[in-house]
């Protein structure tokens, strides 16, 4: 039997039940659409996160208190007060840590900043000039605080663009006084509008010397993080090792399992982000795959009905010389056409909705969301839909092919 004829027969049979075909392939369309959409958004999210991490710079090393969280209970460790002032001096010593260019201790909290009757909640970061260098932000007007001001716990503050706008409007803010936790701070600099950089919302940032933040705002004598910069990218592993040794000595740690700090490099962060986004994408894709499975069952259901309805036709074809394989391939082809069609429509709609989603996400996430289409997803969508067609079409097709001609011709 000729393939063109089988194809023609399958198409004309499907054409005879347009509405039924449409409803049948809807399940496949939704399944493939979901896979494309989820994988595309997952891919975009991954690229966005990786871009953000890469923005930190390959030479950057972060030291955080508490051991690396390996389970939910370890998260409390992150609030440990293990990173102290004395550690900075030890880490700065080139005899202890090789290849270290700079170190910025960091403290942070969410605070309310007020100017006259205006108030605004903001993220306050207490750090040094290195923080600005790492984030690549420099005051548009005014200046950064000096090392001297850090030493003197000077009550000076730099404001992000949005905070400045909300508190001062278009008026000049340099030299004005704002209040944070009842302490008066002099505005010495305003950052330009920058959006998100390395997961920091720079426009909503209040930057003060870390000494000032510790003393007047947080009332603590430890740090939430050390951000360090190595001299070169290649020396990072050596520097990390030296930091570990120095901090263990400083904190009297002999058991490696009992570290009260953990170190993250850009490579670690990329790997971690990759893992997390991949797991999330896989999880969401499996949810989408379930809808494809349901769609497949729908195909099987309709094909079974179709086989039943066309029992006499099967009998007739067999009486006229069709072999079991002829009948099997006819019905199988019908279900593959259905799923293939559903898959193709699903891919087109999936790309369309992924594009729409990227437009929406661009307005919601101020991070520079990029529209990406995963070719893996397109291939997967096509492959899975054809596979569903074969798997779920096989049983009804087999059932049709095994009918005895007499029994089929007698069917009412």
């Amino acid at each position, binding site marked *: 039997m000729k393939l063109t004829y089988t194809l023609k027969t399958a198409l*004309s049979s499907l054409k005879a039940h347009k509405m039924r075909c449409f409803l049948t392939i809807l399940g496949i369309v939704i399944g493939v659409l979901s896979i494309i959409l989820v994988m595309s958004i997952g891919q975009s999210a991954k690229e966005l996160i990786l871009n953000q991490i890469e923005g930190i710079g390959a030479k950057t090393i972060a030291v955080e208190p508490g051991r690396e969280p390996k389970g939910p209970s370890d998260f409390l460790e992150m609030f440990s007060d293990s990173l102290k002032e004395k550690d900075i001096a030890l880490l700065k010593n080139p005899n202890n840590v090789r290849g270290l260019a700079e170190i910025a201790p960091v403290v942070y909290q969410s605070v309310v900043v007020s100017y006259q009757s205006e108030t605004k909640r903001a993220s306050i970061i207490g750090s040094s000039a290195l923080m600005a260098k790492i984030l690549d932000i420099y005051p548009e007007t005014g200046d950064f605080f000096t090392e001297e001001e850090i030493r003197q716990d000077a009550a000076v503050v730099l404001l992000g663009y949005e905070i400045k706008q909300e508190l001062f409007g278009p008026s000049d803010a340099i030299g004005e006084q704002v209040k944070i936790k009842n302490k008066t701070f002099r505005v010495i600099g305003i950052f330009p509008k920058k959006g998100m950089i390395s997961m920091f919302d720079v426009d909503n940032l209040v930057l003060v010397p870390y000494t000032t933040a510790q003393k007047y705002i947080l009332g603590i004598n430890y740090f939430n993080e050390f951000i360090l910069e190595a001299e070169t990218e290649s020396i990072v592993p050596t520097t990390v090792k030296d930091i570990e040794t120095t901090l263990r000595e400083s904190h009297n740690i002999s058991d490696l399992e009992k570290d009260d700090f953990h170190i993250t490099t850009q490579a670690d962060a990329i790997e971690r982000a990759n893992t997390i986004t991949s797991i999330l994408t896989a999880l969401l894709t499996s949810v989408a795959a379930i809808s494809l499975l349901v769609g497949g069952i729908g195909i099987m259901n309709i094909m079974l009905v179709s086989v039943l309805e066309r029992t006499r036709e099967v009998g*007739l074809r*067999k*009486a006229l*010389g*069709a*072999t*079991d394989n002829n009948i099997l391939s006819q019905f199988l082809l019908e279900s593959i056409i259905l799923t293939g069609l559903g898959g193709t429509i699903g891919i087109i709609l999936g790309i369309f909705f992924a594009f729409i989603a990227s437009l929406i996400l661009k307005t919601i996430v101020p991070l520079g969301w990029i529209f990406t289409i995963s070719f893996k997803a397109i291939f997967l969508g096509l492959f899975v839909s054809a596979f569903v067609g074969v798997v779920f079409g096989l049983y009804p097709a087999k059932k049709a092919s095994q009918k005895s*001609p007499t*029994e089929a011709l007698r069917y009412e």
Partner: protein
Amino acid sequence: MPLIEVKNLKKTYFSDNMETPVLKGISLGIEKGEFVAIMGPSGSGKSTLLHMLGFLDEFTSGVYNFEDKPAKSYSKNEVAKIRNEKMGFIFQAFNLLPKSSVLDNVKLPLFYSKTKEKDWDKLALSSIDRVGLSHRVNYEANQLSGGEKQRVAIARALVNNPDVIFADEPTGNLDTKSGGQIMEILESINKQGKTIILITHETYTAQYAQRIIHLKDGVIESDEQVKERKTSNKDGFIK
């Protein structure tokens, strides 16, 4: 050597622990070119016998030789090939594809044959011409009258130039005029050398055959040559 030879052929249907014997030991031979009518009341087993002879169903026991070869020795694909190339079927209910054109319906057996695709239309049109339906080639089957439908079914049965035509009550659903036309066509096909096995319960239709086999309760009651074979008049029906 008979074209068809059966010895002690039996068919029993089994359902829900119930055995229903339909054919209880049929023995007969049909020569190439014969026109045989099988008659009998409802439930006598005539259609079942036709299905066995046409390889549409399997018999329970006995021997069936087609072209001197035991039916049981044919594989499933060989049986399909025999049905396609050597047999043609005409059913009481026509069994056409209602949404397909007359041409497509007649072409149907060709799709399962070795005939080259470029010859399909030519063969189908010639077959349609033989039954006088050239003016209805592009009509959908469901747009035709009963008589026309049966003529399409005959054209379909002839398209692969088979050796034997099995006709299961071909005039059963037709008025007498249309029935006459169908019988006239079958008569002419037989004259061209085709073997015809006709199932009917109408005596006047059976009179077209050379030989009438009467079945009753699954056994042959009589098997006689027709002494005075009827022929069609010029109006297209038997006197």
